[in-house]
């Protein structure tokens, strides 16, 4: 990250608005120096010039001066208003994402950054972006607060569970820059770091090709279903299943033990995975374990997409727009033991 700046110890400045932040910074340094010098000089002058010459002398009294008080209240006030205005202008640039920006989705999780591009590429703790292109990050988190911070771009924003926050920048120099998690998030907070790689347009295109997402959500879901999570051990197609048949259930009505029924949709599938025993399908035992806390929101999206595909519903159409981020619904289920079934 270090630095081609002519100022010693000065960090790389590599986004379209980072010069504004730097300018503001130097403006404040100038103000500080302008106040420090006279005040410190006055203090030194006084302690030397008016040092004690006779023990317990009683110098002449000076009570104060309204004029001086007014002057030194008003001048700092005016100056501080310029600081505020400067800050406000820069803030406005930093936190107003342009409409025509390239979209990237970011999910924070203890202790990694999961990033997905609009075109499906996924990255972890790395973000590749093209130079001179506006990039807008739509961010959330699966667990606690984190903060997506790129010092070289002079911007950062917290990610908050249960909602989206946004960040945007336009990188101006190719290179690799630090990515930090700047909001304390537990054990490995200082390990939640990565890099932002800014590439020339062509290189970025090539990178996109090279990393073309080889797994659609459905494929990813199948992988999870068959291998990683072992759903297939109960739900594999064929006879003798312990688990309910999942083929062609999407959009159908299922009946529950003890009465009641529901139409199978995304939310129902999601709920069946997280809270299986809240709705036990007729003809089966309530043996399916809950996967709450074991599957991430992303994996849920993939699983649901795969199960839908078993019913011939084309989930891939929705895939690119299904962000890595969970729905605005709270992503964190660990935090609550709210019993959703409550039977």
């Amino acid at each position, binding site marked *: 990250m270090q630095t081609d700046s002519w100022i010693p110890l000065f960090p790389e400045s590599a986004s379209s608005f980072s010069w504004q932040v730097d300018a503001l910074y130097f403006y404040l340094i100038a103000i500080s120096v302008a106040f420090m010098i006279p005040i410190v000089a006055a203090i030194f002058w006084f302690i030397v010039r008016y040092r004690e010459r006779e023990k317990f002398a009683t110098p002449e009294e000076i009570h104060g001066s309204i004029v001086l008080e007014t002057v030194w209240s008003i001048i700092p006030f005016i100056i501080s208003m310029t600081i505020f205005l400067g800050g406000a202008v820069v803030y406005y640039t930093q936190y107003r994402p342009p409409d025509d920006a390239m979209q990237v989705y970011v999910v924070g999780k203890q202790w990694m950054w999961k990033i997905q591009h609009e075109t499906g590429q996924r990255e972890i703790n790395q973000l590749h972006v093209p130079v001179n292109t506006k990039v807008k990050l739509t961010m959330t988190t699966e667990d606690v607060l984190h903060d997506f911070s790129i010092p070289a771009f002079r911007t950062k924003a917290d990610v908050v569970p249960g909602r989206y926050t946004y960040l945007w920048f336009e990188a101006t120099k190719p290179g690799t820059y630090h990515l930090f998690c700047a909001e304390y998030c537990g054990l490995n907070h200082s390990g939640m770091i990565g890099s932002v790689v800014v590439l020339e347009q062509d290189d970025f295109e090539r990178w996109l090709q090279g990393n073309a997402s080889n797994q659609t959500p459905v494929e990813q879901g199948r992988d999870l279903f068959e291998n990683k999570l072992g759903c297939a051990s109960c739900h594999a197609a064929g006879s003798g299943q312990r688990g309910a048949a999942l083929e062609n259930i999407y959009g159908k009505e299922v009946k529950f033990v*003890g*009465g009641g029924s529901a139409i199978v949709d995304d939310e129902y599938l999601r709920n069946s995975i997280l809270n299986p025993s809240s709705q*036990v399908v007729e003809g089966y035992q309530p043996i399916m374990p809950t996967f709450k806390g074991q599957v991430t929101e992303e994996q849920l999206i993939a699983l649901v997409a795969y199960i839908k595909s078993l019913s011939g519903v084309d989930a891939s159409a929705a895939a690119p727009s299904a962000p890595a981020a969970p729905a605005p619904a709270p992503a964190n289920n660990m935090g609550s033991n*709210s*019993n959703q*079934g409550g039977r």
Partner: protein
Amino acid sequence: MSTHADAHDHHHHEPGLQHQFENMGQQEESVSIGMWMFLVQEIMFFGGLFTAYMVYRWRYPMAFAEGSNHLDAFWGGLNTVVLIVSSLTMALTVYYAQKGMRNMQVLMIVLTMLFGTVFLGVKVVEYTDKYNSGLIPVAGWNKKSTGAEVAEKAQAFAFPWEIKTEAADAGHGEKKPYINPRGDFQWNYGHKLVEQAEKGGYLTADEKIHYYSDGRFDPFKFQEKVRMFYFIYFVMTGLHALHMIVGLGIMAWLLWKAWLGTFSALYYSPVEMSGLYWHFVDIVWIFLFPLLYLLGRHFIH
């Protein structure tokens, strides 16, 4: 000017004058300012809770209205009256203390304590009802019921909101059979308001996000917002009840002092200070009653 009394020697010319003060006037003023500062502190203490209430009521008006509709406005109203009466008797205690009328003082203190106890009793009734109906927001703290009573209704595995109960409309706290084997929070009174609100287009965008999944009303999500209401309800009324209990302790001490005939026209500031505290607790309830019990009633009626 009164004679100053040494700390080691507690024979004061004026009763109850402490060593650091010059005279009774200074002492009374100090104590009274001190008490008011304490009350200011209390106001800010409850203020934090009111802020939380405000934020979430603004966010989830329908859920809060639903939740509030299942508090019992009758009991709440009764308690308001009880507390106001006790405030009156408290005010009269001070009045009689100033007059130096010991017997009336004692009587008024006893009455105040009596009404305070009635208030707490009513709270116990209400809390019990919440316990029985599965409305305590903490998992496992509600009445556990396997639902044997209603097994024949074959609703054992129904979603809670599908259990038809009349209680939602009657709302007078009679026990309704229900199934809650683990004592979870169980909001099983439906979501009428939301249905109405959906039709009338009342729901704010924020509410839609928080009650809906995939564009459809989601009872789970709604339930959690109602649960939030009950959480706030229990914390607020619980802290208030705690203040009542402390108040009763103070009153007991006061009763003893009054019984001994300590207070007179010259020395009654302990009575007055206890009164300030008691009235403060009353004022908190004056706000809790409409905020928790009443707002949102009109949606249903």
